[in-house]
């Protein structure tokens, strides 16, 4: 008896040690973000000291500077562009992906696995492979520096992921529910809107969040295809690439403000995030 008790205590001791290790690693991974947050609240002179000043007084000057108080470029147009591009493309993705997922999971087309793999394969085509023709097309069509071109490209970037995710969510809906609706004489739009959508709402929400995150984060297309008018938040951030010392608090404030929508969306969808990012293959 005493040996089992001893073993149990040893196991519990080891468990506590491993729990502590997990805490330490968690803090280590979070430390850069915490440090960025602290730096964003320091004055520029306190931010740029070595060794770092932990006890410096806090100020919101970095945030005021970021929002253009010091005469710098206002981030608002870029933030609004990012919001419009991300929301519009997410909506378009859902409108296209939802019926497609229905055809790939509930009322299945023939060779549906091949179609699914076609969608996935477009994800493996590097963005740079089509960038030049898209740039030339946009230039000739007068669509450079146009937010709606980004909306179309972000939709093509997220559509494959959305189709995969949604088909895995819809596949879980019992066929009997759909059959019953059909027997009642419901046609496709009714089935999609009134039967399938309400059941799969959590899955649709998770898909929307992930599409929003990827659109919000995108840099390459936005950098090449936009300029003054349609500049997005990540492109605005690239303005800080060469900034030296003097603007450290402002850089940190900018990075945090622009990351905030993604951090909020990601924390809200923690569980669904895995399933979505692994294209529904992991549950």
């Amino acid at each position, binding site marked *: 008896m005493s040996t089992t008790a001893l073993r149990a205590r040893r196991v519990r001791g080891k*468990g506590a040690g*491993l*729990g502590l290790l*997990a805490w330490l*690693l968690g803090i280590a*991974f979070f430390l*850069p973000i915490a*440090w*960025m947050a602290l730096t964003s609240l320091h004055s520029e002179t306190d931010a740029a*000291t*070595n060794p*770092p000043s932990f006890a410096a007084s806090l100020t919101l000057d970095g945030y005021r500077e970021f929002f253009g108080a010091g005469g710098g470029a206002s981030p608002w147009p870029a933030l609004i562009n990012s919001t419009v591009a991300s929301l519009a493309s997410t909506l378009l993705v859902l409108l*296209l992906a939802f019926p*497609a997922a*229905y*055809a790939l999971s509930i009322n299945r*087309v023939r060779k549906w*696995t091949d179609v699914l*793999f076609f969608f*996935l394969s*477009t994800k*493996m*085509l*590097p963005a*740079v*492979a*089509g*960038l*030049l*023709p*898209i740039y*030339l*097309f946009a230039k000739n069509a007068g669509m450079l520096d146009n937010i709606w071109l980004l909306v179309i490209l972000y939709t*093509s970037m997220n*559509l494959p992921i959305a*189709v995969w995710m949604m088909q*895995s969510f819809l596949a879980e809906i019992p066929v009997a529910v759909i059959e019953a609706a059909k027997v009642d004489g419901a046609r496709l739009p009714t089935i999609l809107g009134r039967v399938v959508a309400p059941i799969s709402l959590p899955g649709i929400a998770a898909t929307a969040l992930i599409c929003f995150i990827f659109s919000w*984060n995108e*840099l*390459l297309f936005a950098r*090449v295809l936009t300029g003054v008018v349609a500049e997005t*938040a*990540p492109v605005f951030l*690239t303005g*800080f*690439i060469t900034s030296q*010392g003097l603007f*450290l608090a402002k850089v940190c404030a900018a*990075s*945090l403000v*622009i*990351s905030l929508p993604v*951090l909020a*969306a990601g*924390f809200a969808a*923690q569980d669904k995030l*895995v*399933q979505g990012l692994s294209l529904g*293959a*992991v549950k």
Partner: protein
Amino acid sequence: MTATTTAPAASPELRTPVRRPSARLRAWATRAPLLPALIFMIVVTQLPFVATLVISFFDWNSLYPDARHFTGVDNYQEVLTDPDLRHSVWTTVLLTVAVVLASLVLGLVLALLLDRRFRGRGIVRTLLIAPFLVVPVAAALLWKHVLYNPEYGLFNGLLHYVGGPQPDWISNTPLLAVEASLVWQWTPFMMLILLAGLQSRDHEQIEAARVDGASDWQIFVHLTLPHLRRYLELGALLGSIYIVQNFDAVFTITSGGLGTANLPYTVYQSFYQAHENGLASAAGVLVVIGSIVIATFALRVVSSLFREEVSRA
């Protein structure tokens, strides 16, 4: 609709021809919801690639548009013999392999730790996910200015306290600096996938093995790792897809300098800054060929995962 209603009357004695028109109609009705998405993807992703393929056979600098002419495979020859480009191929391979492997191993350690019950597990999980949720450009700026800066960066600040050296991280080890920032961003992603894998383990089997006297290490090697294999493959595959295409970190931290230019950055530079449309396209096509090699392997992995999913359903 008329075809479906008149067909049965035309040949009532044969069953198969009777059903064919209506079956065809039904097949189209089944396909209809899929078509908008399919057509959209083909137009927006496949057509530009075909155009890239065509442009890659032209000598075309956008600063001298009148001198544009067909050159066959010259661009490919130039791309393959250009030492800078060959170096960027090597950089891409190094960057991808190093980041995927390091973040997989770290992610596995973290997933194993988080799979256990301990006080505050939810908080630690949230802390660990955070790096993945910082906008990539912001994360790259954070590493470049806030952590790596030799004068006021956090790393040298901490080293200062212990009286250590004050290295210039980005100048001394540029590729490693980019890789470290990417490992920090991608480890949480690997951890999430592997954690999902760990939580789908058969706990009765593990209990049985423990009763039979198997040690933690034996259980890990003989039960956990084989079970995790497919999740490790999935993490490696998805990580590779994104890291091969990485642009943000290279662009932000080193601007492709100091030998850190990977293929996406090089393609970007050759058409955006050097205006060499033909060369850039040829390089782009080569990136795609490389991706197809990875993808062929990758699709096999996914389809094995997928087949299991289908058979389970």
